[in-house]
């Protein structure tokens, strides 16, 4: 099918372009752009998580900042205790090992998403949007008013957490780690979408009554997808905190949730590489227009409004045409 091939081409261009950008930056000795590419990669990763719930499952979560921020705080808090040599909880020590942090971040974010999902999925539509937003705001205010880990000042990560055999302080190494995780998440997304689970999930998004009538109970499938979605976004948060060397309640703020949705939409909702395209557009927009005017968000708002009103398929939709399930 022609459209399918065109989308595959776009995906390859995006994957290779994202890899090539920091290489070029290194070649011309501009390490800032390596870090910028890492930022795109990690926002894309967070977007892949949201895309699972939003794109495949049709669950409009306006609260994914909660999982993103939770992942960030896992990285920050574990590193904080490892740095100070104090136990985290019940004698358990902190750690400065990224892989341990990722596992903890994914487990906790998955659990949080399962709880919030189980409550929010009792409703649908506009209620679901407001409730996910409200629960994320609850976590935001909790971190803001709980002073143990910095409260509104946030928590610095003095030494970036490590992985044996890699020097995570080098921008290129950090990029490679992030890029590898993103590719793994994309592979997971593609696998889930193609499997029976994905078939059920996408069917439920389009017609929950029909799915139930053939014997697929919507609630459990949606909840599983929502929890997995939170896990991936939580993992992205842990990496982002390490990249920034800092975590603060702002990671959990509603603007972050909005940005994650924007990333999914700008690229093309439900598309495998949609979040990659969306993150690249958003960061590119911020970098280019942010350099020209401090009011760049005004233009972002206008572009977004135009996309919503007139270009529903996002970037990949514009180029590859409508999505099909053959």
């Amino acid at each position, binding site marked *: 099918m022609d459209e399918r091939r065109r989308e595959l081409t776009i995906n390859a261009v995006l994957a290779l372009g994202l890899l090539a950008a920091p290489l070029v930056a290194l070649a011309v000795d501009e390490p800032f752009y390596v870090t910028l590419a890492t930022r795109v990669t990690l926002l894309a990763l967070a977007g892949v998580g949201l895309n699972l719930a*939003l794109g495949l499952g049709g669950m*409009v979560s*306006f609260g994914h900042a909660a999982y993103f921020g939770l992942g960030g705080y896992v990285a920050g808090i574990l590193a904080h205790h490892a740095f100070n040599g104090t136990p985290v909880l019940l004698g358990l020590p902190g750690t400065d090992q990224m892989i341990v942090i990722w596992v903890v971040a994914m487990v906790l974010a998955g659990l949080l998403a399962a709880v919030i999902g189980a*409550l*929010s999925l*009792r*409703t649908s*539509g*506009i*209620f679901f*949007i*407001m*409730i996910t*937003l*409200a*629960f994320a*705001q*609850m976590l935001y*205010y*909790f971190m*803001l*008013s*709980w*002073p*143990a880990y910095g409260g509104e000042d946030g928590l610095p990560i003095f030494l970036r957490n490590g992985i044996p055999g890699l020097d995570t302080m080098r921008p290129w190494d950090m990029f490679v780690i992030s890029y590898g995780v993103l590719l793994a998440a994309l592979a997971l997304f593609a696998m889930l979408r193609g499997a029976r689970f994905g078939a059920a999930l996408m069917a439920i998004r389009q017609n929950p009554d029909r799915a139930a009538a053939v014997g697929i109970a919507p609630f459990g499938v949606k909840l599983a997808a929502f929890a997995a979605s939170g896990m991936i976004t939580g993992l992205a948060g842990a990496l982002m905190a390490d990249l920034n060397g800092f975590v603060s309640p702002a990671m959990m703020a*509603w603007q972050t949730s*909005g940005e994650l*949705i*924007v990333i999914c*939409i700008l690229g093309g*909702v439900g598309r495998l590489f949609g979040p990659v395209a969306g993150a690249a557009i958003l960061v590119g927009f911020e970098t280019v227009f942010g350099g020209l005017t401090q*009011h760049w*968000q*005004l233009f*972002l*708002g*206008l572009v*977004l*409004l135009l*996309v*919503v*009103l007139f270009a*529903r398929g996002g970037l990949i939709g514009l180029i590859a045409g409508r999505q099909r399930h053959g």
Partner: protein
Amino acid sequence: MSLSLLVEQLLNGVQFGLMLFLMAAGLTLVFGVMGLINLAHGSLYMIGAFVCAVVAGWLGSFWLGLVAGLAAAAAAGAIIEVVVIRRLYARDHLDQVLATFALILILSEGVRIIFGPFPLYLSVPDLLNGTVSLGIVDYSLYRLALIGVGLLTALGLWLLIARTRLGIRIRAGESDREMIAALGVNIRALYTVVFALGAALAGMAGALVGAIQSVQVGMGEPVLILAFVVIVIGGIGSIKGAMVGALLVGVIDTMGRFLLPRAFGLFLDPSQAMDVGAALASMLIYILMALVLILRPRGLFPANG
């Protein structure tokens, strides 16, 4: 802890709740009649506050500022409805969320461009400055006036919806959109009016609250999200639910922040009690929301059965 302090906090909670009601009423009307989720409702609150602060500063009159803020928010609402919102009624919720999120970005930056990046301050009008004795407590006259205004507005809104032709059309719109078209009501105009009415309520809340908080970009969204909590608790599309939900949220939030640190102080050392109490208090209303969701997923007063 004295009784007078307790009563004062309770009144603060009621006052806060009534301001939330002004926000939630507009949101729930717009949802009930047009089926639209409007994230930019907080921006209208902000516009009301900014215009009120600036006009009050120019003319030296809070009251003229208030009228201007209300009018500006209503006008902004009408313009936004005609230019953008109108195209969203037939769209799904995701599009509505995105487009109104985009509106937040545009309006926030717009306000920053017009009014500058710094917070503005609006002082309480002389007439309402000072305190008034309520027997057990000396209470801020201005806050007491806010309670009065909130109650009067609620009453006015109820009369409007229950007793006027506009209200009949609004109620008809909530139950059956095709029917009111068949009745020959100009739906487009009705929608614009309803949206502007909601905007005016939000602008009024912003202007009134502006005198006890700083007026700044981003002031609307935290209130907007609280108004969402109010609607989830009260039941979407229901004015009565908005009122009950708003009072619950206002009072529980205020009293929680006041009482919880003190309660923990009974068995924890003071600084720890403050920390734990404050952190838990910030979550109280969301826990309330979760409970309502478990027990009554459609809210306490679901509209339309």
